[in-house]
């Protein structure tokens, strides 16, 4: 009997007698006999001691940011995760509960999500945030769906250049059965302006990532004006840490804003679980997907929180729902709420400053190395593109020997970007690390 199961043999007998079957097998009479009780060819069970050892060894075979200097970003970021966060996330009261369908016994989760929604609104300047999507990519796909639902007869969604290629792939996959047409200008010279020029009376929305995949920040105020003049919505995919310094989707007039929320106190985790941040203008709240928590009062007048505007969701709307999301990334939303509370307005600005200034310091140093160039054509936040004198794979191999995980090899996805590396510098990379990176690059 496993240590997770509490029934004794006697109890089993008594319970079977209460049910009125002779043995446990009798409970499965409805399963066709020929396929009942198949052998499972699984390895022998392991003790906790053996499991810890085996998993420790497996984990030890991965490179990890606690042992190496990491200058790799490209959609997953090595940011500081304050110790206090895991103390909260690891409370059984939070992580062993589920969706707060019974509000009287779930006020902890409900208020935490309400505060997450509120903190995201404070961060972004947007009116409404939902309780999360799976990750930044799926949040962006939901933004396209929502924009088309809002625009009614317009089916086109224009994707500006500079979108993270994984987000584009996720959108293409998730939307393949819908009537939504994703349009993009894939010429290497295509600019944000070219994408804006594509917006016409069939266009529901323009999707812009800023800072974009290559780190460049775009001034979106005039873009918003032009997109709105054409009767379309503007969707901005943003970096939540950049908002510690830079203009918010709310300020520029975005209608929908999405982000990968992983930088907000969620570790790298080899790619998941992450956090899909989704916010919008209050005009569109009835079209938003996913869960929303709202403030109300109880029968005694006390303030409390409930899941609200539920009529949008799949369990009620079924085949008429615009999204099928049910389970979300609630615990990661809690982590983000704790993160934003701990950093607050002062901490978030300082983290953004550390990223910005250190990234610019690194870029300047690298630009000074013979054979390397740095793309300075647009302002950047924490990521920038470095042109290298040798193949990026060779450079990364050499960096690894010095304990450095180098940047993302842009040529791997796009042959036009051969020998280009996307470097990321965050508050985790101090000056000594940056100097070591620069010295190693210079010595190659």
């Amino acid at each position, binding site marked *: 009997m496993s240590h997770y199961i509490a029934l004794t043999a006697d109890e089993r007998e008594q319970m079977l007698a209460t049910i009125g079957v002779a043995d446990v097998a009798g409970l499965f009479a409805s399963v066709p006999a020929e396929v009942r009780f198949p052998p499972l060819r699984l390895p022998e069970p392991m003790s906790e001691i053996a499991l810890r050892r085996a998993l420790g060894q497996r984990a030890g075979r991965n490179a*990890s940011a606690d042992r190496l200097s990491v200058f790799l970003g490209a959609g997953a970021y090595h940011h500081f995760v304050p110790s206090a966060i895991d103390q909260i996330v690891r409370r059984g009261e939070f992580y062993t509960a589920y969706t707060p369908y019974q509000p009287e016994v779930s006020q902890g989760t409900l208020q935490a999500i309400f505060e997450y929604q509120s903190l995201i609104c404070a961060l972004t300047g947007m009116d409404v945030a939902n309780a999360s999507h799976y990750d930044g990519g799926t949040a962006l796909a939901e933004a396209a769906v929502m924009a088309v639902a809002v625009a009614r007869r317009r089916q086109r969604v224009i994707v500006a250049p500079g979108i993270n290629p994984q987000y584009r792939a996720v959108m293409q996959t998730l939307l393949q059965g819908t009537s939504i047409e994703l349009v993009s200008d894939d010429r290497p010279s295509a600019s944000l302006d070219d994408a804006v020029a594509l917006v016409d009376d069939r266009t529901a929305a323009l999707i812009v990532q800023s800072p974009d995949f290559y780190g460049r920040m775009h001034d979106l105020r005039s873009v918003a004006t032009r997109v709105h003049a054409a009767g379309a919505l503007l969707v901005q995919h943003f970096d939540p840490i950049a908002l510690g310094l830079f203009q918010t989707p709310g300020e520029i007039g975005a209608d929908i804003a999405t982000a990968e929320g992983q930088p907000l106190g969620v570790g790298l985790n080899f790619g998941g679980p992450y956090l899909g941040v989704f916010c919008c203008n209050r005009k569109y709240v009835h079209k938003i997907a996913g869960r929303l928590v709202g403030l*109300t009062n109880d029968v005694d007048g006390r303030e409390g929180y409930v899941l609200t505007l539920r009529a949008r969701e799949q369990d009620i709307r079924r085949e008429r729902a615009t999204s099928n999301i049910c389970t979300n990334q609630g615990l990661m939303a809690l982590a983000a709420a704790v993160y934003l509370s701990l950093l607050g307005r002062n901490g978030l600005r300082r983290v953004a400053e550390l990223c910005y200034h250190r990234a610019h310091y690194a870029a300047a140093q690298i630009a000074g190395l013979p054979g390397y160039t740095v793309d300075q054509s647009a302002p950047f936040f924490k990521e920038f593109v470095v042109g290298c004198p040798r193949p990026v794979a060779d450079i990364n191999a050499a960096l690894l020997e010095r304990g450095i995980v180098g940047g993302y090899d842009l040529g791997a996805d796009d042959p036009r970007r051969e020998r280009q590396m996307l470097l990321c510098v965050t508050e985790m990379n101090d000056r000594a690390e940056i100097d070591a990176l620069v010295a190693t690059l210079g010595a190659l």
Partner: protein
Amino acid sequence: MSTYEPPIFEYSAPGKIGVNLPTLDVPPAELPVGLLRDDGLAALPELTEPEVIRHFTRLSQRNMCIDTTFYPLGSCTMKWNPKLHEEVARLPGFANAHPLQGDALSQGALALMDDLQGLLAEISGFDAVSLQPAAGAQGELTGILVFRAYHRQRGEAHRSEILVPDSAHGTNPATAAIAGYTVVEVKSDADGNVDLDDLRARLSPRTAGLMLTNPNTLGLFEQHVRDVARLVHDAGGLVYGDGANFNAILGIVKPGEVGFDFMHYNLHKTFTTPHGGGGPGSGAVGCSAALAPFLPGPRVRRRADDPTRFESFVPEQSIGRMKTFHGNFGMLVRAWTYIRTLGAAGLREVSETAVLNANYVQARLRHVYPPAVDRLCMHETVLRGQIAGAPGVRTLDIAKRLIDYGFHPPTVYFPLIVPEALMIEPTETESRRTLDAFIDAMLAIAEEARHDPSLLHEAPHATPVRRLDEVRAARQPVLCYDAAALARLREAALAETH
């Protein structure tokens, strides 16, 4: 449970901070003035670490959870979440691995994923597994998009309908619609199975597939599952398995052996990755060899040139990528650990015990709370909250009264085809003592319903808040902190008490 806790914003005061950050050690660069935000982040709060921890700890005390409470939420498999899992998922080599660091630097993670793909395939009788989908609903969409790609490749793009039983979870029809299909509902018969005559009538050359939950949402094994699958296959369709209820059949029957072509696992149910107050989940999927080329990628395999090493790959005709990176990897570590803790006999014991517990609850309550279908159930039982002699009492009242007895309520009003449904899933990790206490409470509540129904109508009594005004929440939505809205609410409360 702790009493009132104000919104975190009310603790804020200028100048406070809750983290210890490094000072700037490089010369500052010039900032692009036109791109700066101009509100100074004024709406974000300012707090210290102790304030933040105390606030969220106090919030946590206002939750029921598995660690403290029996939580028989049907369809959700609220079983014990092992503590070892929380340790190993946080091993630095897992928690701090970057998803783009490349296969060579990720051999430990890839080895675990390859292993887990194989374990899940063996347990379910499928040929191939993808670990990428983030939750059950994403697993469903993966499957229906795979069906679509399969039919298209065979020149059968005209197949435009997905059949969904009327007992299905809402994600099933929503998924089929989002994948571009017309949803055709199939009736259940009096025994709770798919009505075979109705199924025959709905099948046509337009049928792309059927989505079937087995055990179904009535907690019953589809006795004619192989006939159902044969009918769908004969019509040229494929059979999707919603594996939300897989906890009932580990080592009991393999879905891949009874006609399912594709299935999602809810690792957050059957394989006990914690539900996290709403998520994250993991909706890994398994399928037949014929559908494997369409699975989303990357998947993981052993390298052909060196089988001691692992690589990620994208299947040839992949539908694409369901989410970024490799799926909810942290959940995969937990699921792997669970399977390797229990082994084959342990997994079978899980399902046998889950089914035993559910039947025990059903057997002791069926005289008072009529089952939706009165036959042996699987891992959960669906009862009706219609107590003889208590006409004014509804399922909602029973659920709320259970809270007074210290239990989390079951799932209520689902499946939709059962009036006043109470869907009770005890899971295998509950003791006889807990089950008896719950049963006794249910029986006591039925007595109260007959003699003092106001106890039910006014329940719960001792929670931090009592029944909440959901109409107000929806009519005047306040979805983020708003001091003025709060003040109005507090004033109204004050006015009412005077």
